[in-house]
């Protein structure tokens, strides 16, 4: 088969749509909101040698950069000869997989004419794997639930009864978990079916599929290398101290990003060692979150595959926070690794200011794991998540309430209230929370819920593992703007009106109210250069209060909503901005 540029493009589109079909199959057969609405999953398609061909468009950011390494490990554990049609492999090992035990990685061989031609993988975040329920307080991985080493979960299309039994006795909501495991099998089945359709349409086999994989990887690699080559050579550094997590303060992350020709080395030497709170990050996650900002800043439009990873090398010292070793506890690793893209941006900003976003309000991701028994005796596990504002950039204001670097959806309030014994009291945009700037940061939000009582309420305590905002006002690493833009604001986490710490588990009862505010994104550029009409428009929409307009932007907006040009001129003349 001759892979000219037209055929390559056609087949490239096709493998991406095969991965997208797999994701659709997963969503349509899933038993939980975490998949259907929160979208905490990824589907990937690999060639016969285990090279990533394509991933689903709908996917969480981190899993993209983890998938190739999980697949590689699977293929080292199981030789192709040992696999049959209908087999599926599983692991949730934090080191081989995605950094904590909650994500189940399931891979399946794809057979065509009795031979393996490719592999499919589907990673899904499950809500409970036993152990202590989601908390930063675990001291080691043994407290964090059931660990499944690389195992054969399905044999010839049948769920292994022994493994099923072990899981059933170790987790709190086994039926839901089994339902979603089956949905992952569906995703791999659909992926296989789609791929075989493509092979038949074009008369391809494992060999020519591998050729295709080589070809598109080479094109992706060339494209990224060309973009890297445009960045001036040199070493770009950044160093930050994360806000206090639990009892641990002074967690430092240091990065040196070296651009040499068409390659980049990202080195975290000098960062903190492992910590006693459950936020340690396995290297798979560190690498993935270091690759992502490079792609985003330099070559966003070329689809991701094996070749996209080759020009970038990531290093982190063994046994450090960013390359922890067993038995380090890892549940809340996103409280650390979600900061990496912005830390890399911070280093890159010196070279590429126009392509970098300001910091975002829900970095790291804010969410709550909730577990409760309903009056009917059933245990419910669920997740509630909301986003802060995105950082602004050189071209536009940051959109309000969108996550970065993670990309998960909110679960509808109506769905959450059906899944869990809580009642939302409020969920609204928060004025003045967007970081001021020539382009304003996206707004953050406030929400509050109360634990239901009566028939809708929990039977016994409702356990809540809360990861509130990591953007603390006192933090040396707050939501930062760019080129003179201001920080996003609004961090707040309270139980019944009293501030509580971020990370530890709480036991709530009927009538308890939990409120949280998620900061806005950072601004971009000097806010005193924002056109007064745009500021007045923000005031009209209630994004900025009149006082905020005056203080942050030097713009005076009168009661009718009009800009007072004289007062504005005076204010802006006196004060040229922060």
């Amino acid at each position: 088969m001759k892979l000219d540029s037209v055929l390559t493009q056609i087949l490239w589109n096709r493998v991406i749509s095969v991965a997208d079909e797999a994701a659709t199959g997963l969503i349509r057969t899933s038993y939980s909101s975490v998949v259907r609405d929160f979208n905490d999953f990824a589907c990937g398609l690999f060639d016969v040698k285990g090279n990533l061909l394509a991933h689903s468009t709908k996917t969480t950011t981190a899993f993209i950069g983890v998938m190739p390494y999980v697949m590689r490990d699977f293929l080292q554990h199981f030789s192709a000869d040992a696999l049959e049609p209908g087999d599926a492999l599983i692991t949730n090992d934090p080191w081989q997989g995605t950094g904590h035990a909650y994500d189940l990685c399931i891979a399946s061989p794809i057979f065509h004419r009795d031979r393996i031609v490719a592999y499919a993988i589907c990673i899904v975040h499950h809500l409970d794997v036993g152990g202590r329920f989601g908390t930063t307080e675990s001291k080691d991985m043994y407290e964090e639930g059931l660990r499944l080493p690389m195992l054969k979960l399905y044999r010839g299309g049948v769920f292994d009864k022994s493994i099923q039994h072990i899981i059933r006795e170790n987790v709190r909501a086994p039926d839901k978990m089994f339902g979603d495991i089956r949905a992952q099998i569906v995703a791999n089945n659909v992926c296989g079916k789609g791929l075989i359709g493509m092979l038949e349409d074009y008369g391809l086999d494992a060999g020519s599929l591998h050729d295709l994989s080589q070809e598109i990887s080479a094109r992706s690699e060339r494209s990224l290398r060309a973009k890297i080559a445009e960045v001036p050579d040199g070493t770009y550094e950044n160093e930050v101290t994360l806000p206090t997590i639990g009892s641990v303060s002074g967690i430092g992350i240091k990065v040196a990003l070296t651009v040499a020709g068409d390659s980049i080395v990202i080195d975290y030497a000098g960062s903190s060692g492992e910590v006693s709170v459950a936020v340690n990050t396995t290297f798979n996650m560190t690498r993935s979150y270091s690759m992502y900002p490079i792609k985003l800043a330099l070559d966003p439009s070329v689809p991701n595959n094996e070749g996209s990873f080759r020009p970038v090398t990531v290093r982190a010292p063994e046994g450090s926070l960013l390359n922890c070793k067993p038995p380090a506890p890892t549940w809340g690793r996103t409280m650390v690794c979600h900061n990496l893209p912005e830390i890399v941006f911070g280093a890159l900003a010196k070279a590429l200011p126009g392509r970098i976003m300001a910091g975002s309000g829900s970095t790291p991701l804010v969410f709550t794991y909730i577990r409760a028994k309903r009056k009917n005796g059933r245990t419910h596990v669920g997740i509630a998540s909301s986003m802060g504002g995105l950082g602004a950039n050189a071209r536009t204001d940051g959109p309000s309430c969108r996550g970065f670097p993670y990309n998960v959806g909110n679960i509808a309030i109506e769905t959450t209230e059906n899944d869990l014994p809580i009642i939302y009291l409020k969920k609204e945009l928060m004025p003045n929370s967007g970081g001021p700037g020539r382009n304003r940061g996206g707004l953050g939000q406030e929400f509050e819920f109360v634990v239901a009582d009566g028939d809708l309420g929990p039977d016994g305590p409702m356990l809540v593992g809360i990861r509130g905002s990591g953007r603390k006002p006192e933090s040396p690493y707050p939501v930062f703007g760019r080129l003179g833009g201001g920080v996003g604001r609004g961090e707040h986490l309270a139980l019944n009106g009293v501030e509580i710490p971020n990370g530890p588990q709480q036991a709530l009862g009927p009538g308890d109210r939990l409120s949280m505010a998620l900061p806005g994104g950072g601004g971009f550029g000097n806010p005193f250069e924002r056109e007064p009409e745009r500021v007045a428009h923000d005031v009209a929409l209630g994004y900025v209060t009149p006082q905020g307009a005056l203080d942050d932007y030097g713009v005076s907006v009168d009661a009718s909503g009009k800009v007072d040009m004289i007062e504005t001129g005076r204010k802006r003349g006196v004060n040229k901005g922060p």
Partner: protein
Amino acid sequence: MTSYRIGVDIGGTFTDFTLVDDSSGEILVEKCLTTSNQPERAVIEGLRRLRTLRPDALPGAQAVIHATTLLTNVIVERKGALTGLLATEGFRDVLEFAREMRYDIYDPFIEFPVPLVERPLRLGVRERILVDGSVRVPLSEEDVRTAAKIFRERGVQSVAICFLHAYRNAAHERRAREILGSELPGVEVSISSEVHPEPKEYERTSTTVVDAYVKPTAAHYLDKLSGELRTEGYRNNLFVMLSNGGTATAETTKRFPVQAVESGPAAGVEAATHYGRLIGASRLLSFDMGGTTAKLCVVLDGKAARTRSFEVDRVQRFKPGSGIPIAMPVYDLLEMGAGGGSIARVNSLGLLQVGPDSSGSSPGPACYGLGGEDPTVTDCDLALGFLDAGSFLGGEMKLSAERAEEAIRAKLAGPMQVAVVEAAWGVHNLVNETMASAARVHIAEKGQTARNLTLVGFGGAGPVHAIGLARKLGCPRLVIPPLPGVMSAFGLLTAPMAIERPRAVRQLLRDLDLVAIEQWSVELENEAAALLPAASKIDFNRMADIWRIGQDYPLEVEIEGRWSDAGALERIEAAFNAQYALHYGRVDDDTPLEIVTLRVKASQTSSKPAVKPNTQGAGAAPEGMRRVYVPAAGCYEQVRVYVRGHLHSGDRLQGPAIIEERESTTVIDRGDTLTVDSFGCLIVVLAMQEGRP
């Protein structure tokens, strides 16, 4: 006795008309330029023209059936009513939160659509209903009145009401509507518990807001049109095609206009499906290319793919999640910004780019001579000789080849330093390639391969581009039905009049009360039947949406016979399991099945109009020759031109050739073979060669 049915389809550029005389089977067609600001003007104009041919057209009409892209355009161009939103206090920003996702994780400059209701008009009122339908906070009527005052002061014309869990208990929404009704006379109100009574507040709010946003426009327009039709002597209901291919009276449509947002494209799909059945092709790719957009739809075994929701006004046309969601059943169409009016330009990278913007009907392509200066796809098709300046619309609309060439030279050929013909062919080929790339993904998503699909090409520009598209996709066979230029309007007459009624059930299959279910089904049938014209026989289809309990996406299972029949449940369970295995493979899952929704479709088959071709003749004879660009040769040649109306069934001709008719032109290339079948369809078998353009 004469009995006419009239189809009227308003597109972005043209308004099309078909009239069928059911007593004789005769069909008349008309076409006018769309009058965007007052669409009914073009409608009345076209109907007057029909009347010059049939003076009793309107008094003698049983039904006028209408499809329009008006509502989509109202949303895209943000020309709808000034709309307010009443929400549960504390939740007025649902529209802006959307799903809090980025639709593209690799776009650092990502943007989202501006909500249809601006924030100062999104007002919260004290009330709260819980997930079980119980009331936690009673509705504050005072808050509703305060909101009404603000709406009045701001000149709001339409209000959407969406309270949390209103799908379970609609009392607060209904009471709020009553209050607004007395406080704000003349203002339209849409409530979520009627528009889309399903959980998930964002999708429900978005759908309800769209309904409210287009409602005054729809009401005004449909009233005006109904009035004008009455003045013209029409005595029956005006019918509107809905997005899902069903039909509803203008009165019903006015109540829930959101159901008709995609009405025009649905009519085209109906027509393609009709011809697929006639010619016995079980797998079709319906391809409708008009002045502004092109639409594709996969039709399998006489059924067009459907989906439960769609998006309008995407910020990025091809990126799902970047638009405004509407949770309404609709044909699963791929819509692309590629039409005859699509503007071609040389972009900042020095590369040729076509669309997605269109010159529409005003100013239109440069060759229309209506002031358009940008070269469009139509201008290039004219320069290539595919279209003829003198015979466009049967010669009623003279095109200017000089203006077309001048626009191409000035804006494309000059800057790229190529000949006009190269630029023109570049545009034609590029627009085909753009459509083909998008089509490949869409076809793959439907689990199909182009090689097994018959392309059915229509729309004014469809037959000109269908050959190029079919070749790029690898579709071996192409069908150009009769009257391709007015196919959507024709589809309005071939589609059965149909209406669907749902009822939420939520019961385990094994626990079903079969007597009650049978009773409900009959009630739904009666409800649906009452919405159709009383004239002729009604057929019913029963469906059930079923899932494994705990899932969120059901499969639709056809229910044969009665629920109370012996073995009915076992048959339904087996049908579900078979369908599940087909879609999802073997997964070893025995979770119990739950019936989510019961649905009944009532339809009335009308007599199918068929265009009668000339019977066996002496073989096709060209009317003349003209200078046409032949892609296979890469240059202009003298090419045979046929008049479609003079062809006979059984005629067979070889490409390159041009087949002209009043509303469109079919172009075939060297090596392609065209035959005329007994239904008057042009069937083209493509020459498939490596490296063909």
